[in-house]
């Protein structure tokens, strides 16, 4: 079978399964089985794509085989197949968590049966955004995932969720509008939106117009990726959603924005890295994000701020505009998707066991050793303790930054080290307060993992296990990331798309 026919499957299969789970609305157990299996199959296929893209170069499918490149093109190069692989692994694990009660998460009467269909559509949108071969299809992928995320973030529509969700929806709609504006300018100026044709035609434009398009798209993807100064919506809106939803949002959605930034900076504007601007933005994102985290007294909000700050590391890698920087950024994206999702899932467990996520109310969780381990390992990983993958990713990025010998990159390295230390302080505070602080006298709850369904503990352990495994396979993975960055920078993408044109 021609491998290129596998490319659309990560988009189609979840959409199909979304329909099936809608039919199964009255059978939540079956819904869970269907979505878990679907996402596991997608993960397996993504692995095949990953291996194939590594062996044979980008796999391209012109959907419908329209002549002369009129149709939609889907491309699985090393980067996008790796992203699809990681995202489907994460979603496959997270989707088995929520029972009806957890989806509602305190919102009585929430339409919990829509959770699985919406979640599957979300994953389809994420895959579509990763595989899209043109700007407009990328826009459509964004819209698919955004609309599902609107539903998921406001599930049950409690007062708190509507307030937080309103901010999220309005900001997202605004960024979509800007994206559309950018698309109309791009099409008006070049007559195409295809990633394969754009680089050449953009380069032929007036430099001023090029810069306008680039900055407009930077703003659009910057909003999605929560880059300073466009990050304020994130810590406000993510924490109110149900735990499993927050976990996937935090892990995946911002990374789709970062992925789009990589495509923009490497594929569309390889000649205009805007290194200084992006380095300053990266430094500010790192520092302001982590300083925000230190002021928080609520674990989910604290982690949302660390999420913002660590986007800065990926941006640092992209800003450098070198192969090593890009490879570091790709490695860091993979690491961060997994670690951030694992942490939010563990916080979901903490919420169930300890009854709160507020640091002032939690305490004595150290009585549950397994939970403590599940928290501590990804937390230290996030903080960048050797030999975990967070440390390796940060070292790779800093190495790449130092290799450019620019003074601003040196500042970025210093900021990166400071952020790493401050992250450690933030997560260790949670460790100290939630796990070791003595509980109040009025609190006579018995802390035990037995309040949780066993599959939760197993799934959370699996996720944390994968983050540790990432450390073990860091060598092959970073080689893969380097090859992916070579792929992107040396025009393999355009060549493969042209070659496959029917």
């Amino acid at each position, binding site marked *: 079978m021609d491998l290129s026919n596998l490319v659309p499957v990560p988009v189609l299969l979840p959409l199909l399964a979304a329909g099936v789970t809608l039919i199964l609305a009255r059978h939540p157990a079956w819904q869970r089985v269907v979505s878990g299996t679907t996402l596991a199959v997608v993960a397996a296929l993504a692995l095949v794509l990953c291996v194939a893209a590594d062996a044979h170069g980008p796999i391209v499918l012109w959907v419908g085989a329209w002549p002369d490149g009129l149709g939609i093109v889907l491309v699985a190069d090393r980067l996008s197949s790796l992203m699809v692989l990681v995202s489907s692994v994460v979603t496959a694990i997270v989707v088995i968590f929520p029972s009806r009660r957890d989806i509602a998460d305190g919102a009585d009467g929430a339409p919990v049966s829509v959770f699985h269909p919406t979640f599957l559509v979300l994953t389809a949108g994420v895959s579509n955004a990763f595989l899209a071969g043109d700007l*407009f299809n990328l826009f459509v992928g964004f*819209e698919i995932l955004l609309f599902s995320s609107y539903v998921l973030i406001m599930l049950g529509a409690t007062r708190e969720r509507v307030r937080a969700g*309103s901010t999220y929806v309005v900001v997202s709609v605004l960024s979509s*509008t800007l994206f*559309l504006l950018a698309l109309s300018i791009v099409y008006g100026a070049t007559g195409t939106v295809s990633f394969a044709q754009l680089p050449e035609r953009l380069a032929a434009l007036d430099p001023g117009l090029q810069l306008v398009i680039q900055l407009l798209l930077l703003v659009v993807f910057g909003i999605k990726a929560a880059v300073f100064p466009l990050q304020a919506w994130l810590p406000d809106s993510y924490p109110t959603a149900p735990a499993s939803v927050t976990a996937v949002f935090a892990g995946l959605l911002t990374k789709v924005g970062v992925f789009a930034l990589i495509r923009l900076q490497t594929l569309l504007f390889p000649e205009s890295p805007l290194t200084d601007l992006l380095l300053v933005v990266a430094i500010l994102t790192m520092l302001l994000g982590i300083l925000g985290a*230190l*002021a928080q007294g609520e674990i989910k909000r604290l982690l949302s701020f660390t999420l913002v700050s660590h986007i800065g590391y990926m941006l640092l890698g992209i800003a450098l505009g070198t192969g090593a920087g890009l490879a570091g950024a790709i490695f860091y994206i993979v690491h961060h998707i997994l670690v951030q999702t694992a942490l939010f899932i563990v916080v979901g467990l903490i919420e169930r066991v300890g009854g709160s996520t507020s*640091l002032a109310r939690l305490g004595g969780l150290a009585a549950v050793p397994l939970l403590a381990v599940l928290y501590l390992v990804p937390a230290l990983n996030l903080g960048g303790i050797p030999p975990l993958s967070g440390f390796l990713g940060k070292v790779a990025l800093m190495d790449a930054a130092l290799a450019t010998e620019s003074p601003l990159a040196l500042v970025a390295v210093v900021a990166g080290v400071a952020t790493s230390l401050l992250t450690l302080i933030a997560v260790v*505070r949670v460790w100290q307060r939630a796990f070791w602080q003595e509980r109040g006298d009025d609190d006579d709850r018995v802390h035990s993992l037995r309040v949780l369904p066993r599959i939760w503990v197993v799934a959370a352990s699996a996720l944390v296990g994968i983050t540790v495994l990432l450390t073990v396979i860091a060598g092959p993975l970073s080689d893969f990331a380097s090859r992916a960055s070579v792929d992107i920078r040396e025009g393999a993408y355009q060549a493969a798309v042209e070659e496959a044109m029917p």
Partner: protein
Amino acid sequence: MTPTLILAIAGGVLVAAGVYLLLERSLMRILAGVMLAGNGINLLFLVASGPAGEAPIVGADPEAIADPLPQAMVLTAIVISLATSAFLLAMSYRSFQLEGHDEVADDVEDAIVRRRAEADLSSEAYVDTAAGDTESGGRAVDDSEAGGRMETETGSRSEDEDVR
């Protein structure tokens, strides 16, 4: 290509009006702003599509037909903005049901952090290390200094629990 000036101006005016409305707090006005800006951008797509021509049907003279691609994009954009409007309407209605108005409120936790900063209190996550090895741990600090939070918290949390 010479773009149509009137379309470009109309699109610009619509987007400007949309941006003005987007800056409001009321969700209904934001909705109107999104729709105006969206339609303005759809007009800009028409500007981008170049001169008018015959209906783009396979087999027609390629020189005489209008560029079909922007039309397809605008169609997609219109469908998406329809869905956006429907969702925003539902959201604004829900907000009206819960609050009696549809204005987007400030972040509650942010307000707490800000109030603690104004009152010159340490952040909630702060652990007093001097007191850390005594029996009280971080909690004593919290009890004495958490005044700022307690006030706001009882407000917001009790509302929260009502809903639950």
